[in-house]
């Protein structure tokens, strides 16, 4: 096959393959739609969906100024100033464009399908990024990997309408633009980097990753002696424009100038200016003068910067790192100081198995890809190496950050994989021919190789002649080592077909396994909407457990319009979205004290809790109870976190140790401690539970037999319990009309005499 013919075919094949990859990426995210329905998943997406509805219905300015009095009762929440509006605005624009062209697509469907659609774009940007690092065949592999990698799918299935759904695309695309900018030194690309950085800032709090990684890259290049005008132009443009733009998001505001997380970017910006200034001076003074100038100048500036930063930090102008960032350094930090962060499962340290689970063979290819980057080590490869190192660390600390690791793993693995293919698929006559003709004839490698030869001299321009020579020698040496790409070294082709076959067959087999694993994981683990559960009946037919929506819809339809419902914060967003009731706390978790108050109420006895409930105008209390069907994510299992969070704020009133048995066990059966048994959480969960089984009840989550005499309630009454008992709603009783204690009133109504202890005391 001649090179001309193959390039023509490639020109047709590449877009086709990319389109197919996008289709695969989108369709593998549709499991939940096919199995269940087009519905918003989980918790945070419900808030995003609700705000998007508000935006579409009331327009942008109303959304911007929206004060939501239905959440965080009685405090309320300034929604416009406390959200990353990127995803809502994106959906609203798509919705409005479609409606402009008379496609009456429901906003729900726009929201549900947003993340899969963006995953197609993400794989395309992975292609672009990898193409800049190696070549387009590696790019196609990277696109395919990223399209189906479970680590990314976990946050972008249809219905998972969360910030990450579009943020990963923005992350990859911003990095692509940054690399392009550094490579070309074009202010145009740097400007686009800044624009997409702005989009990223508007979409996800994870933008801080870009804010720190890009300066780090610039800084590393500076340390490696690779300062160039390209770097100067691209970084200065990016920083200046990007920072100004990012400050337009109300939630970010003045953070780029005032918080520690953003200081690195500012510092590198200053450093680059100084370095550029020094380079300018160098041209006008003698080397000796220059040395003294640099020595005094650098030390002075460094001293001023350090002193300035310290003073500003201590005086409070620059805020210290937030708790979330500390927990990235010290995994034990959150557990002690901010239990609310530690209580979220996605903030837990990653188990090693999940690396394999989420990335399968990519995790083995990943180090190889990074190694190959070291061999090449151009400016962009430095970036990949930095990205890999930091993302690996973060992914190890927090499960959730697996998401930022996945793109670079896919890119690095694609480089490694395509190098293997290059080596083993190359036809012997090609290699021989290239050896004969010289290094620069192979069509697909020409740009990369010529890029190497062109860029090296540029970098050394302006330096002393000796240094330049030295560099050139080094470059030549490195080129020799980089045989996998430039093909300069005379290589012996792998001629025997059997050894080639073995490797190729094995690699193909890996690919099959990878695709199978990805589909398996996506279908089995990441496609459950979590508001609808599916289980099998005894005869094998599917049973849908729809208890959450049952309870939420009951609240929506059969409670008065401004009913206040208290529940643990996990369900706040869902309740606001589905039940349309006023909630006390939700997944925003901005006010730890308020959450601790709810925790305290749940953990207290009826008398104490009633006081809290009355003060907060609570009408209903919702708890999740999985004891009937064995749903392990229920409130009793989360109860320890409620206690811990409450103890952090009310250390005298709630004590974790009181909830354990004398032997230090967390029990719910007859051995449970009296504090545990008296807490309203325990009472609400197990109220009349034993009766269901005629006094012989077994809690299917904890696997324990419950006492036959269940708890009694006097300040709360059962208002609704869903079909499988998953959601239990209790109504807070009004004060007794005869002014009695509610406990006495309940006893009286049940025909019991007042407790003898009360009489005796008198």
């Amino acid at each position, binding site marked *: 096959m001649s090179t001309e013919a193959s390039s023509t075919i490639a020109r047709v094949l590449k877009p086709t393959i990319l389109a197919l990859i996008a289709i695969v990426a989108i369709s593998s995210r549709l499991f939940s739609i096919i199995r*269940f*329905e*087009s*519905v918003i998943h989980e918790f945070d997406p419900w808030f995003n969906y609700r705000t998007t509805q508000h935006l579409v219905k009331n327009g942008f300015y109303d959304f911007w100024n929206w004060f939501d009095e239905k959440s965080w009762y009685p405090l309320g929440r300034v929604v416009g100033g406390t959200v990353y509006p990127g995803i809502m605005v994106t959906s609203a624009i798509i919705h409005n464009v479609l409606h402009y062209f008379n496609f009456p697509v429901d906003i729900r469907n726009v929201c549900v399908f947003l993340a899969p659609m963006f995953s197609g774009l993400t794989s395309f940007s992975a292609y672009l990024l990898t193409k800049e690092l190696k070549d387009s065949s590696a790019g196609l592999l990277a696109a395919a990997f990223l399209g189906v990698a479970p680590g990314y799918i976990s946050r972008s299935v249809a219905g998972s309408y969360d910030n990450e759904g579009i943020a990963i695309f923005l992350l990859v695309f911003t990095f692509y633009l940054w690399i392009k900018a550094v490579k070309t030194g074009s202010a145009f690309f740097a400007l686009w980097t800044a624009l997409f950085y702005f989009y990223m800032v508007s979409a996800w709090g994870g933008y801080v990753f870009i804010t720190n990684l890009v300066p780090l890259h610039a800084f590393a290049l500076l340390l490696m002696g690779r300062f160039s005008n390209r770097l100067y132009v691209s970084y200065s443009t990016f920083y200046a424009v990007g920072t100004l733009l990012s400050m337009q998001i109300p939630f970010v505001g003045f953070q780029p100038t005032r918080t520690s997380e953003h200081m690195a970017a500012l510092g590198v910006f200053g450093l680059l200016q100084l370095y550029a200034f020094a380079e300018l001076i160098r041209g006008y003074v003698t080397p000796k003068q220059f040395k003294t100038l640099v020595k005094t100048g650098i030390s002075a500036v460094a001293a001023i910067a350090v002193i300035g930063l310290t003073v500003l930090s201590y005086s409070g102008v620059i805020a210290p790192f937030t708790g979330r960032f500390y927990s990235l350094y010290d995994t034990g930090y959150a557990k002690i100081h901010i239990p609310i962060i530690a209580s979220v499962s996605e903030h837990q340290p990653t188990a090693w198995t999940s690396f394999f689970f989420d990335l399968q063979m990519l995790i083995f290819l990943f180090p190889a890809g990074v190694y190959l980057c070291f061999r090449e080590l151009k400016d962009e490869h430095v970036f990949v190496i930095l990205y890999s190192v930091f993302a690996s660390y973060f992914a190890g600390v927090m499960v959730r950050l697996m998401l930022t690791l996945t793109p670079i793993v896919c890119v690095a693995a694609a480089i490694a994989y395509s190098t293997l293919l290059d080596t083993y698929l190359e036809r012997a006559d090609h290699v021989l021919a290239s050896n004969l003709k010289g290094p620069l004839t192979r069509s697909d490698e020409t740009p990369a190789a010529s890029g190497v030869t062109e860029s090296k001299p540029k970098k050394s321009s302006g330096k002393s002649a000796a240094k330049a020579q030295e560099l050139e020698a080094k470059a030549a040496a490195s080129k020799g080592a980089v045989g996998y790409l430039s093909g300069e070294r005379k290589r012996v082709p792998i001629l025997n077909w059997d050894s080639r076959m073995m490797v190729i067959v094995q690699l193909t087999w890996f690919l099959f396994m990878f695709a199978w694993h990805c589909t398996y994981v996506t279908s089995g683990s990441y496609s459950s909407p979590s508001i*609808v559960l599916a289980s099998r009946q005894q005869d094998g037919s599917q049973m*849908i457990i*729809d208890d959450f*929506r*049952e309870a*939420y*819809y*009951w609240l*929506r*339809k*059969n409670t008065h319009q401004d009913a206040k419902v208290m529940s643990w914060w996990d369900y706040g967003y869902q309740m606001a*979205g*589905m039940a349309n009731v006023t909630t006390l706390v939700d997944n925003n978790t901005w006010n730890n004290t308020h959450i601790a108050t709810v925790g305290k109420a749940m953990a207290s006895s009826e008398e104490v809790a009633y006081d809290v409930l009355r003060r907060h105008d609570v009408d209903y209390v919702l708890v999740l109870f999985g004891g009937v069907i064995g749903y392990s994510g229920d409130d009793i299992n989360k109860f320890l976190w409620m206690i811990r969070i409450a103890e952090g704020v009310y250390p005298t009133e709630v004590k974790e140790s009181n909830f354990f048995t004398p032997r230090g066990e967390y029990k719910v059966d007859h051995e449970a401690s009296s504090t545990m048994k008296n807490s309203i959480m325990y009472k609400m969960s197990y109220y*009349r539970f034993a*009766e*269901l089984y005629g006094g012989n009840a077994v809690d299917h989550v904890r696997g324990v037999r419950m006492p036959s005499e269940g708890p009694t309630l006097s300040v709360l*009454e*059962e*208002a*609704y*319990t*869903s*079909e499988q*008992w998953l959601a239990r709603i209790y*109504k807070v009783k009004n004060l007794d009309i005869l002014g009695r204690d509610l406990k006495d009133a309940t006893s009286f109504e049940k025909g019991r005499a007042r407790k003898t202890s009360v009489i005796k005391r008198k």
Partner: protein
Amino acid sequence: MRFIPSTKALVAVITALVAISSSSLVSSFSMDDEGYFPGGADLDPLVPQHLKITNLLRTLDLSKPLVREITSAALQNVAEQNVTDYYFPVDQVYTFNLAHISAENRKTKESLKVIKDTEFYDSEYQYYQIKLVEPLAPGEKIQITVKAVYTGMTRPFPTHARQDEKQQFVYFGNPFALTAYPTTKQKTTVITPNSVLEVFEHPPESTPEIKNNQVILGPYHDVKPLEHGIFEIQYQLSGPIYHVRHLLRDIEVSQWGDNLAVEEHYNLVNKGALLKGQFSRVDYQKNPAGIRDGNGILGLQTRLPKQAAEIYYRDEIGNISTSALVHQPKEVLLNLKPRFPIFGGWNTTFYIGYNVPLKNYLRQVANANNKYVLKVPFVVPMMETTYEDVLVRVVLPEGSK
């Protein structure tokens, strides 16, 4: 316009010309709690007194939430000339509750034409003119049965009932069959679903005869036209009272796609006795019989055309997974189960929709090029359900006039 959703009820079919774009209907009227006692003024009937009722049998069927009144009268022409019309009076206040009226010849089972009379308008009574097929010669006799169905004539009493309690209803009405003509002899049989609890009746001289689930009033002799009395009965009626507060029915015509898309938005209420206290799942689950015979709406059934495709059942927060389709020779039965049992006073909203081929419902007007006639059911009623507010919207293809 009013619809009587019942097993035998006629399917209200209207022929909506293509020109109709939308029509809004407000129907039904809920009675005052205490009930207005009609017939206060002792008026003579306005209609011509050509007839005499020799014998009248009335059956008042209270076994369902809708009240069915069947009045069979033996008429005799007492005038000099032929009589062509028989007038059936209804108290003006109850005309809002009258859902359906039809008449037939009792012997031949021939159905007769019933017209809402406008000639003899009276503030107290609304007459329904029943056209006889053949004029009745002087002295001749004929037997005519009038069937009337009323909504909202009963009310729960006591107003609240516990989840496991049988709810009780009260019917308040006239012990006499209301006639426009003097009656020689008349008798009313009241049928209740269960044993009768209490009967309170005027005139006091006659004692009602109670047999199991029946109460026999009368026979009364020589009753004046438009005679009124007081009659009240309390009885048990288990099961929910289905009531649709709003129904929005969207019918979308797409000639381009040969498709008729129907979507119905319901707001369903249980008009039975309000739930006393709170709902307890344990009590509900421990007593399967209580679930069946309880007062909660557990499910309802609607009928769809045979060719209905892409049927869906959703509400504001998504698909409702509890529904079943039963294919029958002529239609598709859709069993809908709400997310939660709807007890007295509770409500829910949901919508159902489906697509059917348009060609079964649209035909071209003969000799006219671009004129079409669309013929669709106005409302497909559900069993024993009353409708308060029905809005039907017909969406026509773009550019149609």
